[in-house]
């Protein structure tokens, strides 16, 4: 093992049994059908520690998590819990032993209450019937213990926000008296502001001595939250280090195994925005209202905002998934009435959807079948001819697969996203709407998406870029539009900093109030710093005048 294992036994040591190793992995190896996925992995997770597990997609993080969770059996090595070797026969056995896992896909029943979800399958009983009173009382006690005042046991899970559902999932894990919890990208579906809620919960859990293994692609939260970082690459353990001893650049280098000359590609100054390609004029429906903006050829306009602020609804409105009932949409200067994605495609629009598995891909079909789906569905007559460009597009995106016949379900997230991109690129759209195009994909694939965006602008395509990740919004956009509560809260020029965007998105200092206190705290924090631009978080932007509308 060539890994530079820098373990510091006395790094974070408040509390009594802080240094006690809860979970110890030694020499874990795993093969699938002769492909070695993990080789000789050592890992110690201590009580009260938040331990980040990072690596590109395919590095073996998920497999390692599944071994810990009892989903897979390791082919080599040992798992020790509290010093004694264990083998979990099933995820349930692991859970009962105090090892819980929060997977990326929610395993919640949307029509059932919080309490019913938390105690699913092991409801407290009285006389053979479910003791609902006790179940709700227990759940409320658990919620109170964890400081989750915003949640109540009887709420229907389907009515909760994504962040709250994620929290229910964690509460469920905690309810098994978990001593060890692993979380697979718990913030993948959350907006930046909601992430704070989760941070709070993670910190509280670690304060109670729970050992946490935290898998994430977001560097910021790794550095905000985690005490120790372990890097996997291609199934090998590369590095374990206290967070304090590495910086984000160093971490990315370690993960990727190569230098990134700047994480984001630079703007090409020779690209000057041309004609208006997409214009929204006072559009609205039940979700959004009075939104007007323009996107020019060769321009990247970002649409920022919190989850649920109406960004995706704008994309769906433009694309005819859930159309606008008011206002006008102009594509290439002509007013279009888009009532379906089919008409949108015909008008020269493309939409890379937020949820690539549910909305973007037919997972059981081949790469080629997915890449030519839009052609087949919309312009069958010239589909064969135009599909000839697909191999070239796939290779320019550096898609990695055995062949064009590979079913997309077997590709990594990044490669799946490249198939989605290829599907739209081959239609040669005038306007492309990218809704969270880098969600859940690895660093290398992210870079490919950013490069592609620059290339599109060079070819005169108008790009509307929806993202929850502020660093990429700030780095990539020529202009930033910020949504709040279904309205356009303002517009910021290129080069605005993340705090300004966040302030506008949360409405901090403007007409705040009902927004999360945690987040206001975070924002006001930045105001305390000397030298931040402007005393207030709302800079000199006239578009704030779009006040609250009553008809939502």
């Amino acid at each position: 093992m060539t890994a530079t294992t820098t373990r510091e036994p006395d790094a974070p040591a408040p509390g009594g049994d802080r240094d006690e190793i809860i979970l110890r992995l030694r020499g874990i190896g795993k093969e699938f059908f002769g492909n070695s996925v993990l080789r000789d992995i050592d890992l110690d997770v201590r009580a009260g520690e938040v331990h980040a597990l990072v690596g590109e997609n395919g590095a073996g993080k998920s497999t390692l998590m599944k071994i810990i969770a009892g989903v897979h059996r390791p082919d080599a090595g040992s798992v020790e819990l509290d010093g004694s070797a264990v083998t979990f026969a099933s995820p349930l056995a692991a859970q009962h032993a105090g090892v819980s896992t929060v997977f990326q896909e929610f395993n919640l029943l949307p029509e059932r209450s919080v309490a019913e979800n938390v105690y699913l399958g092991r409801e407290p009983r009285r006389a053979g019937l479910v003791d609902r009173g006790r179940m709700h009382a227990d759940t409320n006690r658990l919620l109170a213990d964890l400081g989750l005042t915003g949640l109540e046991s009887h709420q229907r899970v389907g009515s909760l926000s994504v962040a709250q559902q994620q929290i229910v999932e964690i509460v469920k894990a905690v309810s098994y008296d978990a001593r060890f919890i692993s979380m697979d990208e718990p913030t993948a579906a959350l907006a930046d502001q909601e992430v704070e809620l989760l941070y709070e919960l993670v910190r509280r859990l670690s304060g109670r001595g729970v050992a946490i293994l935290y898998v994430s692609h977001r560097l910021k939260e790794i550095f905000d939250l985690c005490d120790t970082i372990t890097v996997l690459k291609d199934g090998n353990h590369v590095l374990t280090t206290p967070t304090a001893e590495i910086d984000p650049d160093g971490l990315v280098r370690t993960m990727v195994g190569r230098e990134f000359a700047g994480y984001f590609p630079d703007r090409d100054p020779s690209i000057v925005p041309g004609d208006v390609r997409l214009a929204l004029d006072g559009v609205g429906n039940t979700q959004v209202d009075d939104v007007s903006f323009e996107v020019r050829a060769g321009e990247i306009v970002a649409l920022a905002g919190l989850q649920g602020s109406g960004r995706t609804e704008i994309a769906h409105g433009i694309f005819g998934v859930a159309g606008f009932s008011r206002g006008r949409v102009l594509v290439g200067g002509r007013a279009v009435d888009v009532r379906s994605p089919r008409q949108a495609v015909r008008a020269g629009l493309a939409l890379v959807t937020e949820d690539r598995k549910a909305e973007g891909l037919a997972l059981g079909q081949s790469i080629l079948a997915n890449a030519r789906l839009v052609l087949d569905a919309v312009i069958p007559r010239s589909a064969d001819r135009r599909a000839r460009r697909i191999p070239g597009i796939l290779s320019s995106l550096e898609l990695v697969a055995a062949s064009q016949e590979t079913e997309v379900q077997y590709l990594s997230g990044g490669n799946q996203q490249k198939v989605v991109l290829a599907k739209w690129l081959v239609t040669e759209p005038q306007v492309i709407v990218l809704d969270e195009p880098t969600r859940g994909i690895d660093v290398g694939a992210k870079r490919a998406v950013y490069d592609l965006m620059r290339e599109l602008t060079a070819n005169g395509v108008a790009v509307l870029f929806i993202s929850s990740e502020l660093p990429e919004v700030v780095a990539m956009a020529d202009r930033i539009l910020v949504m709040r509560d279904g309205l356009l809260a303002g517009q910021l020029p290129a080069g605005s900093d993340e705090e300004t965007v966040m302030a506008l998105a949360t409405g901090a200092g403007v007409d705040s109030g009902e927004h999360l206190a945690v987040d206001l705290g975070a924002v006001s924090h930045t105001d305390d710093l000397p030298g931040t631009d402007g005393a207030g978080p709302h800079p000199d932007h006239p578009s704030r005048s779009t006040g609250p509308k009553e008809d939502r």
Partner: protein
Amino acid sequence: MTTVATRRELPVRAPRPSLLERLTAGGSWTVFALLLLVFVLIFVMNPSFAEPSSLMAFVKKAAPLVILAIGQYFVIVSGEFDLSVGSLVGAQVVIAAKVMDGQDELTWPVTALMIGFGLLVGLVNGLVTTLLKVPSFITTLGMMLVLYGAIRLWTGGAPTGALTEQFRQWGRGGIFGEPGQFQVPYALIVVVVLGVLAVLLMRRPFGRTLMATGDNDVAASYSGSPVWWVRTRAFLLSGFMATIAGILIGGYAGVTAQVGEGLEFMAITAVVLGGVVLGGGRGTVVAAMAGALTLEALFTLFNQLGLPSTIRPVVQGVIIIAAVAYAAMPRKARRRRPAVPPPSAAGDAAEPKEPAPTHA
């Protein structure tokens, strides 16, 4: 294998696994192995079955089911069901007999009427399913009952009239050779033509869209596929195929009150036996046709073994359940073959996606 260059084109086709691997890999190829096995057993039991005229008799008998399987395939691969085809076949035969009533000059007009009626039934099935959002299981179950009842109401319980000789030729006649001696049945020609057309259709943009719609209708819709019309066309094809099957059955077996009964389940069994996955998005039309042949051959084998015909529904039931259970098993053999060395950038290690453990 070429090394990974910076801009490498993807191979168009995956390297082909060996024949044995394909036969045992589940999905489409298993059914061909099964078909072969059943035929070998039949030949062993009864060597005279291998004579051309016996084989052609078998083809004539099996043709309607093969055609129904083609129609059912389109609907199933798009993610729906069509339970109405059995009743539709029955209705078509009864309508033909009653309207035609043995008058030669009506043969072609009535055939056209039948095709129109079949398409109409398909259209109603399709529109009710896609626009009124009634699950196709219910839509076509309702259609099955409606047709069953309406035909009995109309005819007063017993079918009347007669099919013309010309009409019946499609089901029993043939070309090249003397009647009674060896002939190539029209039914075989019809099956081959429809089968080839179906294969070609599935390679056209329509077929690809149909398949993708069955796999993930949301993604298909977001890609500009008119999902309602794609699925409605699948039902139209099913209605058309049922009509053709009805013409052949009417010719082969004549007019009875029971004609067509149970054919919908035989067709679904055949398609499932061909490795086509219920729920859509997977399977080939050739395998569905092979599934129909296998089922018919199996019944022939049972006949030769002297088993009572009442065993058929039992076998069908077992096949449906077993085939669907088999399809639901993790497809180990379909794993990605490590044809590409693990790339350096954009890491994509061969880590098979396994379903996340459901509800702890």
